[in-house]
């Protein structure tokens, strides 16, 4: 057994011990259902900051982001600004959701939506979205962790076995410790992940030489036309240019966009998709579990936008672009060949060859990136099943012990479903997993209604959501395969017109939602919803002396969105010098697009600071807070009839049938 495998095993064992220890601590502190599901709404701000930041970025940042920069160049690096856009969702919704959950005692977002809209149906839709969102997404994450272990051990450990073992480890500490254990373990996971990103970036710089050597090599690369997308319409190397505002192509898999897929419209709509991360039910529950809203603004402004944004721009770009520069030294070949382990896996293995202890540590960092989000989805998925299904319909009188038991069973079911899908139906899992981001973004309208717009009606939200979900499905490969199964050849494929499925879904969701809301207004329902907004106005409204700043806030946000992730990004292609002009022609001494990204990252931090702190979207200013906080109020379940065991049986039969049909259709 090689030295690197021994160190890898030692690092994983130490990490495992840490997880189990804090799982046990979480179990000891979880006396009631509220303890288990929401850490008794008492997570300290610093724990929330780390756990939410880690979950928001997780494996896609550690493994996916550098790999896509490696493939597509600086045009994809524009999405490093997701470090600003992702917490923008939190800025808009976290504080208000937290207030509502404190006031009305919500445990799941399904309870909140059902209570606000007086709609048990919406609660079930939320369960469906959460499960459909969770299972394939978790399957993807777990498969990546297994593949990573396979790569890092040089095939000594089988990927599928590793996946099951690693999933069992996460299941164990989540199952016994609940959300508190997830949060406690998440603190180390978040720090390991970000430190690992920095370490790999530093190694990339060190391999090339230093920053100036790296930059000189970029200049040389800019004059060439390497890469899968060749040259853009402007004649530049596609690694260094965003290929236009929009391209009216039929979609990936049918018609490739010229110069790469990351047009301005794709960047904008992909940003919408990433913003959906914090709109997902799992993040609502993070907001509910926080003791005080003090964590929101630091998490959004400093941890996410400032720190993660800087790391992505400086270190992930080095990690992604480094191999192109090192192509003549043999490093590129070893990095390219690592398949599912990705670029980061290749780096870790390379580092492990000369410094096995560092290889082991970085492997755990990558694992932490995967498992932080896995654990959060396990926990919140189990909670949603226990609260919204079991307590909501099957046993409304369930006591704490029963709720915790079914929460644990829910965690097990979600984990098992994800593992089985990843093991036996990887094709389905990949296709369904691709829907996850788009689905999350569709909850925007519902959250916007609850937090900001009382005129949006239940009918508008439900129809908008359903239409949005359908549109997401049919602008992803799953929808194409579904249509194809029924003999329909859709004229488009994935992400037509270089617009991400989340963008298509949001567009139809909002249009339908608004139109339906306009024609379904009733005074009684409006009065019911207004009760919530009156409460929010009382505690979360902007103080009168700051109201003149509203136009400034709107202008700042819109201008930033336009130039940072919107159509204005194309200005960055050559505003600081042509990409092929070399360092002498680059006004900032770095490629124009990279300089543009740094510029708008800095302005983005400023913008989100202004919104979170100055506009008090994430803080409470100088006003104090006193709440009437009823213990475990039951918003919907009290009036809902519990279904009997026959219905439960037929529900299970239908679910099993659905899975069988999916397996039959997609193999």
């Amino acid at each position, binding site marked *: 057994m090689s030295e690197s495998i021994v160190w890898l095993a030692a*690092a994983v064992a130490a990490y495992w011990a*840490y997880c189990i220890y*804090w799982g046990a*601590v979480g179990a*000891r*502190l979880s006396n009631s259902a509220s303890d288990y599901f929401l850490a008794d709404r*008492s997570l*300290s701000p*610093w*724990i929330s900051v780390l756990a939410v930041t880690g979950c928001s970025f997780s494996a896609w940042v550690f493994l996916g982001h550098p790999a896509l920069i490696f493939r597509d160049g600086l045009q994809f690096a524009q999405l490093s600004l997701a470090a600003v856009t992702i917490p923008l969702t939190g800025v808009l919704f976290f504080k208000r959701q937290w207030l509502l959950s404190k006031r009305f005692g919500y445990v799941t977002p399904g309870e909140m939506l059902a209570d606000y809209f007086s709609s048990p149906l919406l609660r079930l839709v939320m369960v469906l979205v959460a499960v459909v969102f969770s299972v394939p997404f978790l399957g993807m994450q777990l498969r990546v962790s297994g593949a990573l272990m396979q790569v890092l051990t040089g095939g000594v450990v089988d990927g599928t076995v590793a996946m099951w073992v690693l999933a069992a480890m996460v299941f164990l500490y989540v199952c016994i410790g609940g959300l508190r254990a997830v949060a*406690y373990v998440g*603190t*180390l996971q978040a*720090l*390991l992940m970000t*430190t690992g990103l920095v*370490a790999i970036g530093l190694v990339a710089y060190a391999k090339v030489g230093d920053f100036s050597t790296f930059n000189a090599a970029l200049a040389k690369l800019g004059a060439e036309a390497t890469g899968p997308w060749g040259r853009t319409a402007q004649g530049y190397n596609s690694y260094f240019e965003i290929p236009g505002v929009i391209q009216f192509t039929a979609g990936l898999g049918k018609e490739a966009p010229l110069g790469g897929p990351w047009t301005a419209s794709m960047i904008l709509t992909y940003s919408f998709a990433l913003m959906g991360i914090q709109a997902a039910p799992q993040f609502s529950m993070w907001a509910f579990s926080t003791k005080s809203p003090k964590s929101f603004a630091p998490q959004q402004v400093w941890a996410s936008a400032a720190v993660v944004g800087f790391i992505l721009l400086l270190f992930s770009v080095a990690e992604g672009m480094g191999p192109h520069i090192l192509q003549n030294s043999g490093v590129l070949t070893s990095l390219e060949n690592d398949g599912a382990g990705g670029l980061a896996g290749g780096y870790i293995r390379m580092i492990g060859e*000369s*410094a096995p*202890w*560092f290889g082991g*540590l970085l492997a755990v960092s990558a694992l932490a990136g995967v498992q932080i989000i896995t654990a959060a989805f396990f926990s919140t998925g189990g909670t949603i099943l226990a609260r919204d299904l079991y307590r909501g319909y099957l046993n409304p009188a369930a006591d704490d012990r029963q709720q915790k038991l079914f929460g644990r069973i829910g965690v097990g079911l979600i984990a098992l479903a994800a593992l089985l899908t990843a093991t036996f139906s990887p094709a389905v899992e990949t296709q369904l997993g691709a829907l996850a981001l788009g689905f999350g973004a569709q909850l925007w309208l519902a959250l916007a209604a609850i937090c900001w717009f009382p005129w949006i009606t239940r009918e508008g939200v439900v129809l908008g959501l359903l239409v949005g979900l359908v549109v997401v499905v049919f602008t992803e490969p799953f929808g194409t395969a579904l249509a194809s199964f029924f003999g329909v050849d859709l004229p488009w494929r994935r992400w037509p017109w270089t617009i991400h499925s989340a963008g298509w879904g949001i567009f139809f969701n909002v249009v339908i939602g608004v139109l339906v809301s306009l024609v379904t207004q009733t005074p009684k329902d409006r009065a019911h919803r207004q009760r919530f907004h009156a409460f929010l106005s009382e505690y979360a409204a902007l103080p009168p002396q700051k109201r003149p700043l509203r136009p400034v806030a709107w202008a700042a946000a819109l201008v930033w969105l336009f130039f940072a992730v919107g159509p204005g990004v194309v200005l960055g292609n050559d505003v600081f010098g042509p990409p092929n002009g070399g360092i002498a022609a680059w006004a900032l001494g770095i490629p124009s697009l990279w300089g543009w990204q740094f510029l708008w990252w800095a302005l983005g931090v400023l913008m989100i600071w202004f919104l979170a702190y100055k506009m008090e979207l994430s803080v409470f200013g100088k006003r104090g807070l006193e709440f009437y906080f009823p213990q475990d109020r039951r918003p919907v379940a009290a009036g809902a009839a519990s279904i009997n065991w026959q219905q439960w049986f037929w529900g299970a039969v239908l679910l099993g049938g659905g899975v069988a049909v999916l397996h039959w259709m997609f193999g």
Partner: protein
Amino acid sequence: MATIKETEKRLAVVTNWGVFGSFGLGSLLSGFHSDLLLVGLAGFVTLIGGFVAHVVINRIYGGGFRAGEIAAAFIAFGMAVLGFLLGWLFDPLFSVTDARLGLIGFPAVIVCFLVYLVTKHGIRRWLSMFHTAHNR
């Protein structure tokens, strides 16, 4: 049973050393193994950073270092110094860079610790920490 506050302090300490300790130790080992002075020094700096962060955590949550933490730190430091000296005496691969690294790094850790004691207890009373521990 530990309170939530005590538990969170322990979490902060363990998490702090989970990051600073592991990356610091990794850098240190790489520095010694590959004769990279800067990498090794970065390891020492990271470990010192972990110590400073631990002091900050103590400050935030109240209370100082626990007896177990002090004992663990002295044992770890003692073993590291012993390993360094034994390596210097008996390891044929021990290089000049390794010697420089240890001679800069270990005294730097000691200086930081003394600075902490002097800052916390004053120039004349900095040994009181040991007296307190002894009396206890």
